[in-house]
């Protein structure tokens, strides 16, 4: 295994571990959402590293050859790069929705800590407003 690969896979594992640890150990909504995005970064890194082949050129075709004159068979797999773009955009949408929910939760309860479920918790403040 080359040093680059080691660094990439090491970062994926580290980021995933940090993200999952955060999700399991925190109860604060903002910290939970931050942990989610860290986990998401790990997954995106994994996705893009799947298509990377060391020593090959960028997936851009220039006539009959790759970008720098390399044979067309020597470009990296472009599909994961397209997938990771999609995944990032979807991740943005889910993060936005999660943040909206966090704002709503904060407005109705006055805290960002997730507490056990109850009607009083959700209703009282809203009625008071």
């Amino acid at each position, binding site marked *: 295994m080359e040093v680059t690969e080691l660094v990439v896979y090491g970062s994926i594992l580290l980021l995933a571990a940090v993200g999952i640890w955060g999700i399991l150990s925190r109860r604060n909504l903002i910290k939970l959402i931050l942990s989610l995005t860290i986990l998401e970064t790990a997954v995106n890194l994994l*996705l893009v590293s799947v298509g990377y082949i060391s020593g090959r050129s960028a997936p851009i075709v220039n006539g009959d050859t790759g970008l720098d004159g390399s044979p067309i068979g020597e470009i990296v797999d472009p599909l994961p790069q397209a*997938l990771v773009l999609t995944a990032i955009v*979807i991740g943005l949408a889910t993060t936005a929705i*999660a943040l909206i929910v966090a704002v*709503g939760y904060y407005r109705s*309860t006055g805290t960002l800590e997730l507490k056990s479920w109850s*009607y009083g918790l959700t209703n009282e403040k809203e009625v008071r407003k």
Partner: protein
Amino acid sequence: MTVDPVLLIVIPLVAAFLVPMVSLFSRKIASFIPLLALLAMGGLAGHLLLSTGDTAVTSTTGGFDPPWGISLVVTPLGALVSAMMIFVGIFVSLPSTAKVGKGYELWYNVFVMMTVTGGVGMVITGDLFNLFVFLEITAIGATVLAVLPRDGETKGLNWRGAASYAIISSVASFLILAAIALLYGATSTLNMAQMAQRAGDIPSFVAGTAFLLMFVGFGIEAEIFPLNGWAPDVYRGSRWGTASIFSGVVGKAGLIALLRIAFIILGPAIGGTFPADLLMWAGLATFIVGEAAAFTSKDLYRMLGFSSIGAYGLILAAFASGSEMAIQAGVLLMLGHMLAKPILFSMIDRAGAGKRGDVTLSDLEGLGRRSTMSGVLFVGAALAMLGMPPSPTFWGKVMLFSSAGTEGQWALAVIVAFGTLLEAGYMGRLIWKVMSPAKEERKVELPVLRLLPGLVALGLIMLIGIQPALLNDVLDRAAEEFMDRLNYIDWGGF
């Protein structure tokens, strides 16, 4: 001529774009768009169900042959489940279409439509990455539905339940995406049929890791024990339509996706009986835990939510137990649950109308006397859930028992019998309360838009209960899909 199944996705997406624009001019007209889209989708899904026959209807987007383009593979089971999901969507959005312009009704209808679209997409897609995209559409739609308050009021938004679901469903989709990345790395394809064909190339540790990631991810969506901690929070504070969508669409889509990945794609790569065993025992544990928790619940939304969790467990166990008859039983159980649960949620909403907080057993008292039709619908649906004939659940349970008998899976039979007893315990209490004399004379309103879908659902339950042979073809094809992977590979065009 067969219509292109891609319309099942295109129609609601176009409708979703139209709604905000039309609502600038008239909220009234805008609020009919989601319902019309769902009705069109329902017609399409029904047509696909009739035209699938012996094989699957496929569609390749953009004219790129698989594996280059995204392909949709509508198997007969996929068509049946899609049609049922759309039915649940129509069921829950009909009553709010009448209350246009009030509170959140318009947005409720839009997000019901989007969640149903996501669920349908997950069931009919033949591409793993596309499956992830539809999973996210479902999750976003379901999160918004989870927030929306009962009766379209502007107070009492269920932020707590929505927060649980938003976080946990994001974790689920990232785990699934990681599994997809691993599988793509091993097979260089995202097309599910082609991936199944190349399953032999997947190293067993990659297959094992991907399976566990998928199990946790889809297990969260399908409310499988012990991954369902979020579900009671959502069910408890949600409106009846949201609860019906969670029990009829969100989890069902996750369940079918998990079963396809486990049995069609990953099964041979992992080898042995590990995937089937894990799924069956997880299913049985979910069934018992769900039914036991339902038995002890006070709030009726929570009780029926746990009962849905139990139903998910039973369906998973039936599919995973592996015989042809058990798979057919699983389809029938799924069908029975999707038809009966929305009726129960709808009637509980009627019983607790105008009430803040928990809807308890005493709210049901005399429901049958206060409104005869409500009583008929409730008792009919509750008996159908339990498996009283004539109902699909009856045939499902009979077939599951006889399959367990011939396969010698005694543990399965005993656990299912015990769970059914628990189910009879709490359903019996509900039925008893509904039939008992009313203490208060508070009238129960049952608008025709709510009565109608309930009657249709009850009618379908009885039709399938009396004439299960109507579904023979679909059931046979469903069993073929999971018993022999080559069928799916062939249907997918490889």
